[in-house]
């Protein structure tokens, strides 16, 4: 059998924590930008303007049909040229982190768009008609009547997608960014403690995601009453 060296794990904790912070940063940025952009995309897809709907549909379809690994590699490839120029980032920022922010945000937006679109469609045309009949504009009806109901309905799905996002951040391995997982692998390579590191990381993800999933189940049980 294998021997787990707790001493090695403990001594690696500070570095692992720094990696975990990176994972959490990416998750948070992608979550916020992803949901906002996702709302926008969902509304565009449902809009009566054909060109806008087509653009939104193309965006969602493309991002949902390529592996996240490729998306990360793409943005890491084109990041030096575009990101620094477009976003006026300070020259000392880690390009890998910036490209990861952009890649994950745009990628997750496509998934959130589909979840939110399903939520909006579940609200039903009658509610839209009722809002319009009162004299509210289309945007007002969307803002005050449709979206609040849609988001309420899909909140468990949004949280589930966020848990998937948290796990997916581990893929920044392919661009060499030192998140929680990559940091653990790096330490393992350096100290020869690969097995301990991998098992520890697995256990951490299991604990965190397991707890979050249990919370989602509670949420779902509450709202279905």
């Amino acid at each position, binding site marked *: 059998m294998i021997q787990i060296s707790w001493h090695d794990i403990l001594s690696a904790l500070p570095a692992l924590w720094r990696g975990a912070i990176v994972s959490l940063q990416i998750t948070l940025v992608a979550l916020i930008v992803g949901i906002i952009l996702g709302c926008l995309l969902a509304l565009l897809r449902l809009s009566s303007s054909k060109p806008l709907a087509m653009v939104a549909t193309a965006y969602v379809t493309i991002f949902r049909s390529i592996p996240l690994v490729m998306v990360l590699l793409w943005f890491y490839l084109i990041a030096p040229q575009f990101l620094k120029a477009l976003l006026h980032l300070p020259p000392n920022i880690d390009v890998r982190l910036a490209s990861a922010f952009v890649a994950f945000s745009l990628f997750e937006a496509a998934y959130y768009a589909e979840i939110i679109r399903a939520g909006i469609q579940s609200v039903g045309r009658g509610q839209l*008609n009722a809002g319009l009949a009162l*004299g509210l504009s289309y945007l007002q009806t969307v803002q005050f*009547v449709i979206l609040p109901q849609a988001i309420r309905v899909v909140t468990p799905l949004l949280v589930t997608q966020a848990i998937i996002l948290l796990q997916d951040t581990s893929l920044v391995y392919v661009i060499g960014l030192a998140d929680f997982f990559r940091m653990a692998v790096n330490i393992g390579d350096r100290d020869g403690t690969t097995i301990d590191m991998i098992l520890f990381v697995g256990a951490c993800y299991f604990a965190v995601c397991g707890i979050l999933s249990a919370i989602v189940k509670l949420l779902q049980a509450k709202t279905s009453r």
Partner: protein
Amino acid sequence: MIEINRVSKWYGDFQVLTECSTRVAKGEVVVVCGPSGSGKSTLIKTVNGLETFQGGEVIVDGQSLRGKQTNLSRLRSKVGMVFQHFELFPHLSILGNLSLAQIKVLGRSEKEAAANGLVLLERVGLTAHADKYPLQLSGGQQQRVAIARALSMDPVAMLFDEPTSALDPEMVNEVLDVMIKLARGGMTMMCVTHEMGFAKKVADRVVFMDKGVIVEDEDKDEFFAHPKSSRAREFLSKVLQN
């Protein structure tokens, strides 16, 4: 008040409304009836622009629905609509439902809107439920709130799209009573309904539609005593049996 001139509408190749013309004068109560699929819901929805139309014209309170100057939102706020499935906003309280459009469209303050809402709830007999949520109320209660919500915008006319069709039989009368009070109070009303008892009580005119065409359009008494078309006679014999 409401003028419908030769309105025609197509869904693709299928014509749902063919050259429909009628009018509702101020203070008049017009009942629109007919078999299902006759286009009566579609017709009434053209009056506040929830359904578009390709031919003809609709004029409400002097404004044409297709006019370039017409502000559709403003026009809709002047015409109240009550839907078959109530369509209260489930995430807002009853008072919230009544206040939303007053605040966002008419620019009233929250206090003003709430006070007005309470007055309307009293009119429909539901003051005690002001802070409840729609799904906590029965169907009949929800529909009465829906009527109050439409009235909260101080409309010049009210449209009813089969307001009692989705209600259990024992709740139909509480809603009809509110509508009768409204009619007797002088409100201009256009109602799509199967409730011939209501029509006999308060309607001024009855419009009978079949397959997207207005077949009959006459005084209530004339219609019930001497329907001119065989289709209307057939319809009446089926409906009045209940």
